[in-house]
């Protein structure tokens, strides 16, 4: 065995160990979710389930109890969908328009404004919890899905603006000038020329925003009303308020259900994610 194959071997070994390390929790969750209570108590954490038992999945989805509420995760899941879909679309569209203006229609002070918007990317959201709840109160949006959508749009806008602005600075100015001379206006240039060129960064932003908003716990726990809680909060409550015996299999199934949509989005659009990230990073 020469040095080259040896180093190859070492590289693969390290990669395999890393892969095992990251996949182990997923395996434990999946395996546990298919076991029954007896198996969990007697068996090893890493052992395979003896039979495929879907009961904990149906329990987690529709009948598991949080305190006296026994509707499972289903209502929270749909709350999350109703919150995440509009919030993702609005914050992405908003970021695209901001980025378009800040890169191609610069005005006096636009770079300064962009600097301020950048602050939003690094701002810890805990800081805005109290003022935000006041604002939501003024607007009559407290404890509603609409309120959560607004909060996520505002919180995500800084990041999405940054993504689009950096991507659009790489688009040559001459393209916009050519369109202006051809007779296209601000919006026409945006949706006929700029948006069709934005597929990679659109994908990045959509994935990014969906993951952030779907997985958000802080805003969900702070601003949602009793029956408007997103799935992260529902999962937490369900797992933490079991009365007698902890049913790990149900908790695991519930956690996987909560994480499934983000995984799905990665699988479907993940190829664009890497492409878009590098495109924005290298040229921005």
């Amino acid at each position: 065995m020469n040095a080259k194959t040896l180093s190859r071997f070492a590289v693969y070994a390290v990669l395999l160990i890393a892969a095992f390390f990251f996949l182990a929790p997923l395996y434990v969750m999946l395996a546990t979710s298919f076991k029954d209570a007896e198996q969990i108590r007697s068996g090893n954490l890493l052992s395979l389930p003896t039979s495929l038992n879907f009961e904990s999945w149906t329990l987690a989805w529709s009948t598991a109890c949080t305190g006296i509420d026994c509707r499972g995760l289903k209502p929270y899941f749909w709350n999350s969908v109703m919150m995440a879909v509009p919030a993702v679309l609005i914050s992405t569209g908003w970021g695209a328009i901001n980025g378009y203006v800040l890169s191609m229609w610069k005005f006096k002070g636009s770079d300064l404004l962009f600097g301020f918007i950048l602050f939003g990317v690094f701002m810890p959201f805990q800081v805005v919890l109290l003022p935000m709840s006041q604002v939501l109160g003024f607007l009559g949006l407290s404890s509603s899905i609409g309120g959560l959508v607004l909060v996520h749009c505002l919180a995500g806008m800084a990041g999405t603006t940054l993504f689009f602005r950096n991507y659009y600075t790489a688009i040559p100015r001459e393209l916009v000038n050519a369109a202006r001379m051809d007779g296209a206006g601000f919006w026409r240039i945006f949706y006929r020329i700029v948006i069709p060129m934005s597929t990679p960064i659109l994908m990045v932003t959509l994935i990014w925003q969906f993951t952030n908003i779907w997985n958000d716990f802080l805003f969900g726990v702070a601003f949602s009303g009793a029956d408007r809680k997103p799935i992260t909060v529902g999962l937490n409550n369900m797992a933490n308020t079991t009365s007698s015996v902890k049913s790990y299999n149900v908790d695991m199934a519930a956690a996987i259900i909560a994480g499934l949509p983000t995984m799905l989005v990665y699988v479907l659009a993940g190829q664009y994610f890497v492409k878009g990230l590098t495109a924005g990073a290298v040229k921005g």
Partner: protein
Amino acid sequence: MAASLQIAGIRKVYGKGDKSVEVLKKIEIDVAPGEFLILVGPSGCGKSTLLNIIAGLEDPTEGELRIAGKNVIGVAPAQRDIAMVFQSYALYPTMSVADNIGFALEMRKVPLEVRNKRIHEVAAMLQIEHLLDRRPAQLSGGQRQRVAMGRALARDPQLFLFDEPLSNLDAKLRVEMRAEIKRLHQVSGITSVYVTHDQIEAMTLGSRIAVMKDGILQQIGTPDDIYRRPANTYVAGFIGSPTMNFITGSASGTGATGQFSFEGGALQLPCPAVGKVTLGQRPEHIHIEAQATWRGEVTLVEPTGADTYVVVKTGSGLITVRTPPSTTVKVGENIGLSVSSQHNNWFDAQTGLRLA
């Protein structure tokens, strides 16, 4: 329909106060309908800024711009009825060639049928009909250039602007497209302004050439004018390749007996002024003459095929001489040089301005 273009006292200043830079200093140019005006100069001379101001992509600090007699300062680019060919072509990457050519017509709400007819007319004119369904990324450089031209031609504008359109092409294609642009201008007769830093493009394409430097218009005239009677040493040196030879010395008389003496030689030449002057001589107007008193040593022989350029080291610096390819001079040889009394360009040695 060809329109006139008047550039009247255009100034452009960037920045404010001490840090301000004046990139255009009171430019005055009148372009007659149907003319092909070339703006030529080194990079940073302000020629592209001037073109952008004509296009309406930038506003001048001062001055007026009239297209067909109407002042268009403050008018949006789209309303000026101008088409522009950009250096990078600026083709819309997500649209087909046909959509690229038809975009301006679509923006002007031209009905689909008329639009398609026009697209095919233009494509036929440029021989790109077989490419209409392709995307710009699938085209070669020369094809992209043609599409960019087609986009400008499609809507029959009052004015054509070209911003160094050939600088991204290889040498052979550049010559080809240069001829193509000239042909299209002759066919369409649309007033055109063409920016370039390439003096051969300027000479071959332009009906008039405006030479610019540091935001100042140095000279404007026909290619022949600019070549034969350059207004100053800058223009004289910029236009023509290889560049004009300059010899600084002193002239003793203006009459037929005038003597122009300089380091390393003297010539029997009538000069329009007495005192310190610079003589400008193009390589083709200096001859090798065995018996001449003005002598130098050959340092370089450059055959180009049609001509051979001989660089001679004289007391007044290096002198380039154009000779027929049959020349037999060798490097290191000591040869004599002469000039005829015609084709002499005399400049003031201090100001560089042309004397008479």
